[in-house]
């Protein structure tokens, strides 16, 4: 049996980030990355581009192919981990092989929820979370005129947007009363629905698909879906985008979990030697002051780096993340973070709207806990940063949604030393040397 210092299950945002971090600290300890996908690590959010712009996997890969070899890592594609034995510290693979590890990272991500709808196994029904899914959708497209997308969250919208680029008819069926209901507030949803309709796609909200039908008894292919009000929609393809859930099956019985695997601020599970990061675990939501599953890319990358540092013996704590998203679908820029649906009893709300845009900031006791922005989102990062720092903005909160909001709207203490050369740096040579500053100069003038 092979023994590795580090075994990482999952070769995506979280797993890759951890592997890179480990290698900045420990260049030689044996490192194995397992992945049940065939491809090198790729940008999952980009899979829609395979459908819309025929982007291939090469254009989505996160690291050059030589990366694994150059970094002295082993990467076993198409290899699924099926069981962890503890305290033996081994992991059994689908082909019967077994590897021994000293520390193990579970970066297994999430899997798409397949709702128990009649006919869900028919041909032409797809989930939409892997490059492989995007490939099979693209393969079937030439024989498709109508597609029903079940679910109006960002994965559903991403699929619908890509399909509109291919000029097929798309209908999004959303069970809630509005699309993107977990990402934006009601007004945000309205603006997005307008953009979706303007692109030629249809949105049906407040309805469920109750069956996926095939008209020919001898064929297993999809030909329509039926909604709970008995409406029938013709379609040759159905995309299931009703959400994802942490892929915890490997961890079952080995590490404690609630909605996801429980980890501490160093990304350690309660079982010594086992770590977790990304979509599969619960981490600190700094906007809500609670632990939650935060299935977004930046959380997996940042959490993975923390896990890698801890595994390699240089623990540092994770500052946490929050629900956050930026989507460019249907020609509309939308960003959100933290609490988007406010409770009037708890929260203060500031808004600004005009014909092209909409901005909302949610505060709790003078501290920003959430934001939504549609249209011009260029300065939302300043707000996000204040939220992350839990800065008390009560005295000047009205500035946050002003059209001229910017760095100068903030108290000096929040930005000055970051953007300007400190006087000390200009005058004191020794200080400059200590700061690694060689020279500070202005150039000759030219207009």
């Amino acid at each position: 049996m092979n023994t590795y210092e580090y075994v990482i299950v999952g070769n995506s945002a979280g797993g890759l980030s951890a592997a890179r971090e480990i290698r900045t600290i420990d260049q030689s300890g044996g490192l194995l990355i397992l992945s049940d996908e065939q491809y090198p690590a790729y940008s999952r959010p980009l899979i829609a581009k395979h459908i819309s712009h025929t982007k291939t996997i090469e254009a989505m890969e996160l690291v050059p192919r030589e990366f694994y070899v150059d970094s002295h890592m082993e990467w076993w594609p198409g290899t699924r981990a099926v069981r962890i034995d503890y305290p033996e510290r081994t992991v059994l693979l689908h082909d019967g092989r077994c590897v021994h590890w000293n520390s193990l990272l579970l970066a297994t991500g999430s899997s798409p929820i397949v709702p128990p709808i009649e006919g869900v196994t028919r041909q032409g029904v797809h989930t939409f979370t892997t490059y492989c899914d995007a490939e099979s959708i693209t393969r079937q497209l030439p024989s498709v005129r109508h597609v029903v997308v079940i679910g109006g969250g960002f994965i559903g919208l991403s699929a619908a947007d890509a399909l509109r680029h291919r000029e097929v008819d798309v209908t999004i069926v959303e069970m809630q009363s509005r699309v993107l209901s977990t990402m934006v507030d009601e007004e945000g949803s309205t603006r997005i629905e307008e953009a979706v309709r303007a692109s030629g796609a249809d949105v049906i909200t407040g309805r469920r698909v109750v069956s996926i039908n095939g008209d020919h008894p001898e064929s297993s292919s999809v030909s329509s879906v039926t909604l709970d009000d008995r409406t029938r929609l013709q379609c040759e393809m159905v995309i299931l985008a009703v959400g994802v859930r942490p892929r915890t099956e490997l961890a079952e019985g080995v590490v404690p979990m609630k909605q996801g695997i429980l980890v501490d601020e160093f990304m350690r599970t309660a079982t010594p030697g086992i770590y977790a990061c990304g979509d599969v675990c619960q981490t600190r939501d700094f906007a809500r002051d609670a632990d939650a599953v935060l299935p977004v890319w930046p959380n997996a990358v940042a959490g993975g780096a923390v896990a890698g540092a801890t595994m390699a013996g240089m623990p540092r704590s994770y500052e946490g993340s929050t629900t956050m998203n930026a989507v460019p679908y249907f020609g509309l820029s939308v960003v959100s973070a933290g609490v988007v649906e406010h409770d009037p009893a708890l929260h203060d709300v500031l808004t600004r709207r005009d014909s092209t845009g909409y901005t909302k900031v949610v505060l709790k006791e003078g501290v920003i806990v959430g934001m939504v922005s549609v249209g011009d989102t260029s300065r939302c990062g300043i707000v996000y940063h204040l939220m992350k720092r839990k800065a008390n903005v009560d005295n000047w909160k009205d500035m946050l949604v002003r059209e001229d909001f910017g760095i100068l709207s903030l108290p000096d203490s929040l930005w000055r030393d970051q953007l300007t050369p400190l006087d000390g740096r200009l005058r004191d040579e020794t200080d400059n040397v200590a700061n690694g500053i060689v020279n500070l100069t202005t150039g000759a003038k030219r207009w």
Partner: protein
Amino acid sequence: MRRVLVKDDLCIGCGLCRVFCEAHHAGNDDPLKSLKRRLSPPAGGIRVECNGIRSISVRCRHCEDAPCIQACLTGAMYRDYDSGLVLIDADRCVGCGTCTLVCPFGAIRKDEQTGIAVKCDGCLDRDMPRCVNACPNDALVIELKAAVSTIATPA
């Protein structure tokens, strides 16, 4: 690493840094030629803020622990090892806006024409960043910093 800092007490908010930055990145050093009759500003990396008597020229400060690199969904935002600067691989960027959402300075925006992210690229093609040459009041300075080791050592 070479980056531009601003002495905000000297900044008069004239906006020449922004204009020359945009002109330079539009491929022509003459703003009158390169900006002529454009409806939206070309790709530049500077925002000039004026607030009463105070003003400041804001651009990417190429953070050491750059949140935009960690947040980038596609690997488009990267640290250039030669210059130490944070740069965007335009072929990889899809304009999702996640970098914009996490930038504490609001220094990354989406270019209307190309739909992808733009920010200060440090004018690596020039001896001196264009904005520094353009500032009439010496409010912009470049900071030259010896490269810091990126390899951490175990405690």
